[in-house]
């Protein structure tokens, strides 16, 4: 919650600044994106209603059931971005609700980037990605105690080639569940 207040503050501060230099456009965009999470998460609710129609969608073993969307545990990102893409927002919402319904489950968020750029910057970027996922999970009722964030940056690629196909597979947050 605190993060949202901070973000709102940041938006207000930015909005209050007269004539942002063009160089800062992206910063403003990043903030807006993050704030939109709230709105989209709310959108996700209607999607989740359809999902709830199934048989106990948030039952404990749903995360290991190949027919449940909860079995999908990787979220991919755009280059140098930590905003959660439209197509993953429902998925993150569902994982958030799963955690809210299963307080004895723990989730480790492992943040990763592609190999481009510098290593320490990538560690911080991967951390931002995992934190963005964490914020959305908590918005749905997951608690801080349930979530652990670890950033590996570009150190643990799943694809070793040096091309866009490999890079897009490596820009990810992995959700690793553990019983508490």
């Amino acid at each position, binding site marked *: 919650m605190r993060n949202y207040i901070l973000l709102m503050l940041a938006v207000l501060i930015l909005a209050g600044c007269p004539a942002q230099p063009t160089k800062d456009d*992206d910063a403003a965009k990043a903030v807006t994106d993050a704030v939109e999470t709230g709105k989209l998460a709310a959108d996700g609710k209607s999607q989740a209603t359809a999902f709830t129609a199934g048989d106990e969608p948030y039952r404990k073993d749903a995360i290991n059931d190949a027919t449940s969307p909860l079995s999908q545990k990787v979220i991919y990102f755009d280059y140098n971005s930590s905003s959660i893409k439209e197509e993953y927002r429902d998925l993150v919402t569902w994982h958030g609700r799963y955690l809210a319904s299963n307080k004895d489950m723990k989730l480790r968020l492992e943040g990763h980037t592609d190999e*481009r750029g510098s290593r320490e910057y990538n560690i911080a970027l991967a*951390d*931002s990605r995992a934190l963005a996922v964490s914020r959305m999970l908590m918005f749905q009722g997951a608690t801080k105690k349930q979530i652990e964030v670890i950033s590996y940056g570009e*150190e643990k690629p799943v694809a070793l080639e040096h091309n866009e196909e490999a890079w897009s597979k490596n820009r990810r947050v992995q959700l690793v569940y553990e019983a508490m």
Partner: protein
Amino acid sequence: MKQILTLCCVLLCTWAIPSYAILNVEITQGTEDALPIAIIPFSWESEEKQPDLSSFKVISTDLLRSGRFAPVPEDKLLSRPTSTENLDFKSWKVAGVDHLVVGSVRPAGNNQFAVKFQLFDVFKGEQLLGYSLTSDGDSLRYTAHHISDLIYQQLTGQKGAFNTKVAYVTVSRDQKGDSYKLEVSDTDGFNPVTILTSSQPIMSPSWSPDGTRLAYVSFEKRRAQIYTQILSSGERLKVSEFRGLNGAPVWSPDGKKLAMTLSKDGNADIYVLRLEDKKLSRLTKHWGIDTEPSWMPDSQSLVFTSNRSGKPQLYKINGAGIKPRRLTFEGSYNSSAEISKDGQKLAFVYKDSSGFKIATMDLETGVIDVLTEGPLDESPSFAPNGSMILYAEGQRAALAAVSSDGRFKQRLVAKEGEVREPTWSPFLK
């Protein structure tokens, strides 16, 4: 199985031949204005059985690797004078050689040797340098590097950095998993010593200014922690294990502080740990990423990477609570800056349409020079004399070096696995 065998072989070689080089040096771009110099193979002045004097060949390779000299290949030498009594300067001059080095070695008892060398100016026909050095039988290679330093300094006016070290991380991947090693070797890849081995990532080695310790990030406990380690004893100290990021440790030039990136208070910001009393203070406070600190020579101000403008750019901060000043405006990605020891230049990762390259920026004029071709270059590190910049070529998983003016390039290829994150040591005592 084959990989296991290769690994065993490597281990054995490391034990059997302490000077085994893990890296091969290839010159990839020479310069036309390198100074021609003839180094006569050092002679043995004794009736005793001649020991292996091949260590002295490194004087030639050192000078060649500096990009400033063009040593005459051994098989192209006009003659091999052993005495300096009646050197035929005229014929060397005709052969286009500017300088001549003549040296000799004799036993001095107790596995000690007396090494004598002289450097001559061929045109003036006079001696520029003459030294007699005593060397242990085991450290002839270091004595040879020392001779390279003396010649380099005499002729360029700049202190030589041939007797320094480089720290780097190697990774080998096989079915059994990944193996990360933090290693320290001579700058030509010889005498590698493994400082740490782990199945989890090792990152961001940084030298203490006296060259006795390394700080680094280790994920051995499945999360990032910062350690400092005494190189001579292997004794190490955990200095940071906060929740979240613990990264980018860098020693201040006065050796009293360690700057690092932590995310314990939200997201990536830069903190300074005073080593004497472990007092931690926060330097930057921003919702964007702040990381990759590098100290100015005053041990007060730092340059760092921040995406507060939306994309990673370099900023300079003069102290906690002071607003950072943006340094880079050209390009969409500037990061990982290292400040030269004299505080005049930055080396950093610069992105343009063809990839990530190593560039320098003059801190006074702001002029940017792009030195490499990319496409995945990273981790620039200055030689202590500022003459060269070591970096990692991500595409080849190799190390490379470029002269600070960009004219001379060489590649250091690992004999196996990936090698990355090179960090050049300070001058060593």
